[in-house]
């Protein structure tokens, strides 16, 4: 379904009651009665899971899986799959400059990227009452998975050329991959760049934001929105660097004070966050989720550009009564 996504974001800002937009996809395993392992290997299950979630909750958008192993796997990284946990990258693909130089940029469709594209294509066909947003990893976070996260942090100082060489290649891939999502009928992507939230503002400015901006410039237009997600703790200190990406909307994690972040964000930029996905959605109770959601909205909804969301990806086995309590609390806030 074609939508003007700039108008969609502007309408959310200007409207009073706003539909929440949690990063909600993996708990579909409970609705489908399948394992995470089965879900991440099946386009049809993913599309059906997104459809079931859209039927159950009145969210501002339907989001596909935030599986941050998919793109690394396409580059050749080894992946560990678990029945009830989101897949993890194993080992290190780029160990030195020679490894960075010889790293091959995969074709879109490599590994499970084709499967994820098929899922979003089907979801965009069947979900027609709200935008469908695909999930992609950000360039620094992908490079970190290929180089080893600790190593890339040190290499920002020791071997910046190696980091930039890797970033160049992952960015080329991410542009092509995101363009494929655009062609699939998705209305946008949520680009997850959590590793950049561990950097100083200066390093973020050098090693993350310019590459994210390249992706934004390549894909974002009236019909396709890029939502920048960063759940790192350093976000409040790097707002200018984050805004330099030019993304159409921003999503922040529970490691930050959302009110503090909103005070630093432009009033006309849609900004989402940040109910704790683990302490609340996964390990909380309906009462605690309701209380924390209402408290956050009390604090933050005076900012018209604030949209209530989870702070990050909601874990697969989070009780649905907690997720339902989140939506009910948001509804209560706006309609009491």
């Amino acid at each position, binding site marked *: 379904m074609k939508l003007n996504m700039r108008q969609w974001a502007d309408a959310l800002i200007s409207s009073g009651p706003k539909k929440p937009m949690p990063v909600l996809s993996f708990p579909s395993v409970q609705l489908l009665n399948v394992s995470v392992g089965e879900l991440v290997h099946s386009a049809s299950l993913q599309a059906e899971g997104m459809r079931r979630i859209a039927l159950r909750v009145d969210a501002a958008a339907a989001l596909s899986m935030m599986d941050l192993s998919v793109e690394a796997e396409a580059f050749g990284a080894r992946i*560990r799959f*678990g029945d*009830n*946990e*989101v897949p*993890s*990258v*194993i080992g290190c693909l780029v160990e030195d400059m020679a490894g960075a130089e010889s790293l091959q940029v995969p074709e879109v469709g490599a590994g499970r990227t084709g499967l994820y594209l098929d899922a979003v294509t089907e979801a965009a066909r069947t979900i027609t009452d709200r935008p469908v947003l695909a999930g992609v990893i950000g360039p620094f976070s992908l490079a970190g998975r290929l180089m080893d*996260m*600790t190593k890339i*942090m*040190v290499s*920002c*100082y*020791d071997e910046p050329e190696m980091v930039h060489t890797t970033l160049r290649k992952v960015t080329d891939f991410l542009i092509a991959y995101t363009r494929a999502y655009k062609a699939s009928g998705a209305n946008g992507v949520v680009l997850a760049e959590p590793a950049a939230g*561990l*950097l*100083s503002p200066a*390093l973020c400015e050098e090693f993350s934001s310019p590459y994210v901006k390249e992706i934004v410039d390549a894909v974002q237009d009236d019909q396709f929105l890029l939502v920048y997600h960063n759940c790192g*703790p*350093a976000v409040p*200190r790097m707002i200018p660097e984050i805004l330099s990406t030019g993304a159409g909307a921003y999503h922040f994690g529970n490691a930050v004070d959302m009110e503090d972040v909103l005070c630093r964000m432009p009033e006309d930029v849609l900004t989402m966050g940040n109910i704790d996905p*683990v*302490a609340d959605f*996964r*390990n909380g109770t309906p009462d605690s989720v309701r209380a924390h959601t209402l408290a956050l909205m009390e604090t933050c909804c005076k900012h018209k550009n604030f949209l209530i969301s989870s702070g990050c990806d909601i*874990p697969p*086995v989070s009780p649905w009564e907690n997720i339902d309590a989140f939506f009910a609390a948001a509804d209560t806030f706006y309609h009491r």
Partner: protein
Amino acid sequence: MILEDIGALLQKGKSKDVERLTLEALESGLEPATILEDGLLAGMSVIGKKFKDGDVYIPEVLIAARAMNAGVAVLRPRLAAAGVEQHGTVVLGTVKGDLHDIGKNIVRMMMEGKGLKVVDLGVDVPAERFIDAAQENDADVIACSALLTTTMNEMREVVTRVKASPLHGKVKLMVGGAPVTKEFSDAIGADCFTADAASAADAALKLCGAN
């Protein structure tokens, strides 16, 4: 002055300069323990505080810790010869089923920066390996890290096994990681939870002192 220079260069992550100045300090007749405490650990302590306060970030901590280790490597033979002991021993690892290590690595560096000996077991560590390593190294603390909501329950297994082992009462148990909370730590019977790496190092030092 030279000790201040060592601390300052350590904070900038200048490994080679720290190594060189540590050697010069030794040659000038300073005691190895003084160089360690007032140069290297003092510099690392500043980095730890700045990290806790949000004034430096993970990459800066990593390169500072590496510089500290470069200095410690110069001192190690002299420290051993002088009978200088570390402040305690921590067995550290990411629990079974979990492959995430950056948080654990930061904790290790912060703990080493407090003068603790850290036996880093890496990632995907089963409960029995924590216990074996604690026994082999006469550890004061076992520290478990997890990033995943599913694997954090493996911490309960570590706590249960330790309490059923001869280590019970001798080794303190620390837990941490993004999904871990004080409530969870209390529920599984761990001795200590901290929310960040710098606090973990402070707490471990205190627990080692208590033993």
